[in-house]
């Protein structure tokens, strides 16, 4: 077994005394802000943005604390701490989000300084997980492990984390600002539906550079990000982002909250004019002050360390034998396990989507179990995916069966990564103060309807994404099937979209027809799946069939009874 001290060589950025001092100071700053609010020195209007910038929302039943999991990577040690906080200050569970973070739903304001203190003990915080600032940077859940990876995005995501932390100029932006980064030719981070989406790549000389997409986003006005520069050299990475943010901070709309995201600025100025503004600002900013020197990049990379992989071969005999002997295990491997850049290893998705379960929820006990499994099988390191699952990224292939056996025994072996049961859902009206309708009960009903793993595998890759309001935290616009909860005179209705796609072929889904009730929605999904299965050609995914046959047959079947 590979027991590695957390944060040392596990491939997780290791804090030093300066990082720790900063987080400790920030906790004390927030403690003082809470005291000033309780004493009346700060009004609620003044306090709200301050608490939001520390991840603290007021939701329907209590405060909600959103803990940052920077680019979705954490140590077993950190996950155990989260489990403990869930038990001590919450109700024994947490919710993993589409932004690779963790939310606690039942938090007391007066407890938050103590919770932040506990987080600081394991080099964690809740900084900038909300508010009109640059949010937690997200990336590929297989970062640093994927076989198709060209550039390790963690290094640049960490540089961004540091650079955006309490940025003096960009902490009171017109609206929130989300950056995602990918280091592969594939897109597993929905790059083009972020305010800024970045592909890290290499030129023919092997140098690192970045392709920038700006102005993507979901919500009320969904947009696919526009390419504004194909190659930004590594040393200009920070300067270029600084230029984008300065243009946005100065020209982004502040008169209307629904038009304040950068996507509206890009749309209103036009891609060309916006690009020109950024380029002019960049030309002024470029220089030694903002230069990202190679030594900085090397130092950050060094502080990630990296697992000490052994020399192994793919598909060891023991794995083949286990798959042959156990069809359920074979199915889990086929669905939830992907290739690793190092032969003999694999990345395994731990589904938090059991049939009929609450997507993304994990109990403190489950978190502790996964932490133990991460220690035993993945160098003490794990990830949160934007699909609200957990990932052990560096598992020896000959240990997969042992891992699966432990997961299966604890209800965490659901073989549905990327399948119809792997539903993304926001908390919806069961928890969220902004929601118009519930999301979770619908996700539960759909995943229960499609509970049979064999049927799910037959259906194949099909992402259902559910949002309880137009803010689209459940990414419904980019679901192959998207579901948006709406309120019609006090009743919950659901609008179905099809054809959304968060990958390289990014597309916003189209509305299929009038909104229907929750029960009707489940039947509608079934109808859509039936039409797909009866029309598909060999090897076609749902999206392929949809593209070929169009909406007609789907619409006809779904609304046949209306």
């Amino acid at each position, binding site marked *: 077994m590979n027991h590695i001290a957390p944060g040392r060589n596990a491939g997780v950025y290791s804090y030093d005394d300066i990082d720790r001092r*900063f987080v400790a*100071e920030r906790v004390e700053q927030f403690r003082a802000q809470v005291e000033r609010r309780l004493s009346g020195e700060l009004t609620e209007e003044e306090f709200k943005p301050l608490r939001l910038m520390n991840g603290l929302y007021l939701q329907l039943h209590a405060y909600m604390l959103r803990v940052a999991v920077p680019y979705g990577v954490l140590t077993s040690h950190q996950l155990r701490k989260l489990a403990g906080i869930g038990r001590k200050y919450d109700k024994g569970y947490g919710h993993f989000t589409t932004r690779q973070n963790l939310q606690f739903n039942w938090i007391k304001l007066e407890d938050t300084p103590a919770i932040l203190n506990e987080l600081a003990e394991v080099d964690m915080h809740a900084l900038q997980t909300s508010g009109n600032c640059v949010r937690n940077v997200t990336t590929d859940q297989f970062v640093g492990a994927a076989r198709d990876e060209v550039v390790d995005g963690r290094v640049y995501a960490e540089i961004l984390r540091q650079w955006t932390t309490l940025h003096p100029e960009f902490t009171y932006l017109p609206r929130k600002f989300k950056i995602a980064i990918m280091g592969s030719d594939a897109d597993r981070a929905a790059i083009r539906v972020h305010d800024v989406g970045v592909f890290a790549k290499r030129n023919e000389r092997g140098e690192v550079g970045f392709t920038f997409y700006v102005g993507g986003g979901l919500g009320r006005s969904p947009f696919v990000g526009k390419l504004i520069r194909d190659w930004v050299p590594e040393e200009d990475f920070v300067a270029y982002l600084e230029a984008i943010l300065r243009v946005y901070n100065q020209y982004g709309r502040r008169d209307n909250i629904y038009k304040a995201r950068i996507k509206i600025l890009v749309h209103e100025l036009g891609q060309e004019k916006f690009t020109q503004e950024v380029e002019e600002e960049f030309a002024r900013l470029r220089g030694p002050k903002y230069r990202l020197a190679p030594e900085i990049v090397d130092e950050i990379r060094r502080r990630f360390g990296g697992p000490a992989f052994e020399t192994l071969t793919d598909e060891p005999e023991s794995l083949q034998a286990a798959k042959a002997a156990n069809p359920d295990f074979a199915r889990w491997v086929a669905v939830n396990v992907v290739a690793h850049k190092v032969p003999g290893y694999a990345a395994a998705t731990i589904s938090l989507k059991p049939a009929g379960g609450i997507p993304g929820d994990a109990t403190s006990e489950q978190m502790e179990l996964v932490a133990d499994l991460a220690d035993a099988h993945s160098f003490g390191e794990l990830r949160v995916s934007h699909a609200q699952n957990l990932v052990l990224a560096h598992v020896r292939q000959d240990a997969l069966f042992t891992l699966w056996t432990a997961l299966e025994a604890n209800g965490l072996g659901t073989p549905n990564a990327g399948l119809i049961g792997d539903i993304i859902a926001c908390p919806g009206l069961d928890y969220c103060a902004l929601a118009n309708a519930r999301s979770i009960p619908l996700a539960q009903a759909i995943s229960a309807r499609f509970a049979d793993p064999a049927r799910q595998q037959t259906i194949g890759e099909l992402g259902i994404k559910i949002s309880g309001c137009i803010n689209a935290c459940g990414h419904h616009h980019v679901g192959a099937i998207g579901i948006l909860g709406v309120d019609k005179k006090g009743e919950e209705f659901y609008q179905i979209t099809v054809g959304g796609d968060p990958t390289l072929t990014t597309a916003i889904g189209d509305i299929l027809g009038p909104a229907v009730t929750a029960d009707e929605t489940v039947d509608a999904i079934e109808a859509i799946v039936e039409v797909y299965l009866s029309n598909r050609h060999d090897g076609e995914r749902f999206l392929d069939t949809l593209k070929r046959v169009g909406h007609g047959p789907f619409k006809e079947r779904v609304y046949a009874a209306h």
Partner: protein
Amino acid sequence: MPLIKDGRIVEDAWVAVADGEPVPADRPAIVTFERWQAERASFDGRNAALGLRVKSGTLAPAIAADLDRFALVAIEFPKFRDGRGFSTARELRERYGYEGEIRAVGHVIPDQYQFLVRTGFTSAEAPEHTKPESWAHALTEITVAFQPSLDDPQPLSLLRRRLGS
């Protein structure tokens, strides 16, 4: 409203002149950008220092050409959440080399003070009920920064800097 400089309340040598009111000739006075545009010739030959007050939507390039006429630029924050002023101040310093006083006026809170200093502000108008100790404390509670800025920070290592205060 109390004026904050270097973390404490100080005497304000400047008088803010509302549009339409006479501008005192014998003491430093702040006029609005709108008035400056309309009546700029009337300030020819003025000896006492002149300051300019700009709304949050008036960005640095709009006043750049006249900067040498002003010993002070007051940047308005209509509400503290409107952060355009941080970019305006920074551009005045970094892009246009402005060396006069830059003052935050309108609604700013102590929790923004360090950001104000780091983007080039030299003074801030605090709300009437403000607690001076909160402003003083705001300059010392965070000692590490991750970006270059205007308060002459000392690099600690790589991205990190010790904040000067």
